[in-house]
């Protein structure tokens, strides 16, 4: 009986592993999700840096030397690209995730995102300054 019922089994046409290739919007969504791999790995790298710092000057110098490896530079350049993509997509979606209402009116999304960009620029300049870059 069961075989009769299953003569024309329902087959999902959507592949669970490649579904996002069908549409550019899905691909942009996945690109946004993949940023976490690079940001997560980079955060673990920062954690290793703190560990080396705690272990003393020799360990920390070895960490700085490892940063100069070509593979490390490639990783950091990729991380910079993905991190910038994360930042812009995150700020652009913030007004939708947290609509800001003042009185009767909603603050325009562009203003909320724009305020984030201004704050981002400010924080970046302050950190670069405190780090002694200029």
């Amino acid at each position, binding site marked *: 009986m069961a075989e009769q019922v299953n003569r024309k089994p329902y087959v999902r046409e959507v*592949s*669970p*592993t490649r579904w*996002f290739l069908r549409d550019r919007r899905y691909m942009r969504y*996945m690109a946004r*999700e*993949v*940023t*976490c*791999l690079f*940001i*997560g790995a*980079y*955060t*673990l*790298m*920062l*954690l290793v*840096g*703190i*560990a080396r*710092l*705690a272990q003393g*000057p020799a360990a*920390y*110098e070895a960490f*700085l030397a490892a*940063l*100069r490896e070509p593979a*490390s*530079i490639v990783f*950091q*350049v990729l*991380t*910079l690209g993905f*991190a*910038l993509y*994360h*930042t812009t997509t*995150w*700020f652009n979606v913030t007004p939708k*995730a947290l609509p800001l209402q003042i009185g009767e009116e909603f603050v325009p999304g562009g203003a909320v995102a724009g305020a*984030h960009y201004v*704050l*981002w620029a400010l*924080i*970046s300049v302050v*950190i*670069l300054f*405190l*780090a*002694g*870059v200029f």
Partner: protein
Amino acid sequence: MAKSNKPIVWGLFAAGGTVSAFVIPVLVLLTLLAALGHVPTTLAYDNLRGFAASWWGKIAIFGVIFFSLWGSAHRLRITCFDFGLRADTLVATVVYAVAAVGSVATVVYLAAL
């Protein structure tokens, strides 16, 4: 009502996404400068050690690593599911465990500084 840990991990995801959006690009820029031979003065051993020894330095370093780690961990869990890895309980256990161990390790190393 069934208990859920969703609000906690989603809150950490929101906080982690925000923290990393604001500071990860500039931090990558700093380590890239160091990698290219122009080590920013604060990244020199004595200066960074001094920064990490101060309580505000510890809070800043812990805040960045903690939130960025948990935000990435939660997003990685969703990403694994979206790439067809449907063993969600296993994935969640692994990514949150890494985030938890990383958080504790950060505290331990900062305490030693």
